[in-house]
């Protein structure tokens, strides 16, 4: 089983990390929220240059046909930087949806352009992804349910608690596909999206831990750095453990998505639950250790806090994913 990143994956992650660090994502994200998506679109073009947008696209449509673990590696870095834009949708779910559906005309229309970065895409799937993220600033908007796949017509923008996530209601547009092949393709896309979302959560959790460690080393109270207090140490140790134990589930789920279709849903749910729990613990602890300053926008903690809040509740809530695990247990599959 492929549970540790390869040297190539490590290099890939490092390159992506360096690019995003240089791109000053906090500023880009503020602009994205304030209806100025242009700087963000520039970053997305750089993602395409690095190959991120083509990872899940088959070679015949101009992609890299990479393993889902590679998508996980990339999305973890995107989450670490709290990059704005529909990452789980455009990088993971849409390629999976179109590929699985297997309609060559549709694939040819969109996959090469998604891979090249010419198009950023987004997707709404009732009920787990009720709004299409950033549908008002990207050029491909789809809307799927178990029976049909349609173009989506962006409606009014709703504000997310994570204001860099532009939530848009979409009305039905032109019908693209219908019939028995749609349901499984949509289910597969939901799994791919949930996995990418879990990876972003893990990345965001690590970013929160790192920020909090820095703060705990600098901030003094009672004449010592607060990181020297046992209570703070133990809080942070628990965060680190939560994140450390979520990661193998994430990679195991990526392997299952590629190679074990019978357990993919269960394994992806386990990964989503674990990553969301770990990231939310990181967020709670970050606030508790930062104290009041964590609430101030200028502290910069906020983007990660609200990102975690939002991601933990999309691509299936914790209840939904726990329920899938329980169902698998009841079916005697687990034990």
């Amino acid at each position, binding site marked *: 089983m492929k549970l540790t990143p390869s040297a190539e994956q490590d290099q890939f992650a490092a390159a992506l990390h360096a690019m995003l660090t240089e791109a000053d994502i906090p500023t880009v994200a503020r602009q994205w929220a304030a209806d100025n998506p242009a700087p963000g679109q520039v970053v997305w073009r750089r993602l395409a240059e690095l190959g991120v947008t083509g990872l899940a696209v088959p070679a015949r449509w101009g992609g890299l046909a990479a393993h889902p673990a590679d998508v996980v590696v990339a999305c973890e870095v995107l989450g670490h930087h709290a990059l704005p834009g529909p990452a789980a949708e455009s990088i993971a779910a849409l390629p999976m949806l179109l590929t699985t559906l297997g309609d060559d005309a549709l694939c040819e229309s969109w996959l090469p352009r998604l891979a090249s970065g010419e198009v950023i895409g987004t997707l709404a799937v009732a*009920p*787990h992804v*009720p*709004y299409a993220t950033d549908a008002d600033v990207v050029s491909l908007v789809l809307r799927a349910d178990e029976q049909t796949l349609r173009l989506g017509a962006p409606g*009014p*923008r*709703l*504000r*997310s*608690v*994570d*204001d860099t*996530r532009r*939530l848009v209601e979409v009305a039905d547009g032109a019908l693209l596909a219908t019939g028995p092949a749609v349901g499984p393709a949509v289910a597969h896309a939901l799994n791919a999206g949930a996995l990418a979302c879990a990876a972003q959560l893990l990345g965001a959790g690590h970013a929160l831990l790192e920020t909090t460690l820095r703060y705990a080393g600098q901030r*003094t*109270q*009672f*004449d010592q750095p607060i990181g020297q*207090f046992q*209570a*703070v140490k133990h809080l942070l140790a628990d965060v680190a453990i939560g994140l450390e134990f979520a990661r193998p589930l994430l990679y195991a789920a990526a392997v299952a998505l590629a190679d074990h279709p019978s357990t993919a849903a269960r394994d992806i749910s386990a990964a989503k639950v674990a990553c969301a729990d770990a990231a939310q613990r990181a967020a*709670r602890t970050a*606030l*508790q250790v930062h*104290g*009041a300053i964590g*609430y*101030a*926008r*200028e502290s910069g903690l*906020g983007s990660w*806090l*609200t990102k975690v*809040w*939002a991601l933990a*509740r*999309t691509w299936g*809530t*914790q*209840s939904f994913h726990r329920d899938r695990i329980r169902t698998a247990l009841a079916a005697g599959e687990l034990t």
Partner: protein
Amino acid sequence: MHDDEFRQAVRAWLTENVGAELRGAGGPGREHEAYRERLAFNRRLAAAGWTCLGWPVEHGGRGATLAQQVAFHEEYARAGAPARVGYLGEELLGPTLIAYGTPAQRRRFLPGIRAVEQLWCQGYSEPGAGSDLAAVATRARLVGDEWVIDGQKVWTSLAHVAHWCFLLARTESAGTGPRHSGLSYLLVPMRQPGITVRPIRQLTGTSEFNEVFFDGARTSRDMVVGEVGQGWRVAMGTLAFERGAATLGQQVGFQRELDRLVALARQTGVAGEPQLRDLLARAAVGLWALRAHTLRTMAEADQAGPGQGASAVKLLWSRWHQQLGEVAMRVRGASGTVARDAPYELDDWQRLFLFARADTIYGGSDEIQRGIIAERVLGLPRQARG
């Protein structure tokens, strides 16, 4: 007045005076809401004699019994009356002046507090002094007949509307004594050239908190409460004032939140999920326990003076409220992250979820409270803290 009559009178007045536009406005995380309307309402409340109930009559209060104060706060919460804009003066500074102030200070300030004409803000926290208040670095030195103050306070709620600030400042160099010696408790007028107020923009997009910069700000020599250098004792006295009656009011508010959440869960159908039902039941029992504990603490305080329970109560209600926020987000499900459309504003549940996280920080963090319980109540050995 008999307790029941008192309650009837409170209820009658509130029914007549709390309009729909005021209902539920204000409170932690929402101090910006309907501020002018709340101020006007609080002044009407004062004019009708419903402020500073527990203060002794000779200081302008009504000398109300504990039971009457409880009745007031419960009815106030039940009526959905708006969060009081003058509570810092009424609950913290007023009792402090009654306990430690000079007759002149009392004469000068208590009437303005009672009438909600003079508004106060609290200057304790500093960028370097959060949990560790003894680290206050703002300095005050006597120049002629005035204190001249330099430094910075932070998380100062409503500083932009306050007329005065009560604050801790260092009037002697720290030297080798305990770190909290050499602090004084000063009263400083806010509207003067030496003071700059800068709002802190919060995650929620609102800004009820401020940074306050003191740059040669002045106040007259007699504006020190208690003795010079004894400010720590005065400030700790303030923190220890029994807030039992107001706490019960707070719990009525919690009960309203819980009721609304249960209603929402029923409406959306998730109340049928066994785990959510269990969480809601636990929340209900937790609130009974808080209420029973508060009543018990108050009964004991009536018998034997204030108890040691404040830290435990703070810990418990803050955790309870945080958990309610998390349950609320579960009830909301996937739609829990959509904010009201414009301007960027959270709905009540989102605000509860986000702001309840601060409950375990402000007024002494969870970690500090547990340390206090372990050392002062359980008698475990103290940690060296300078």
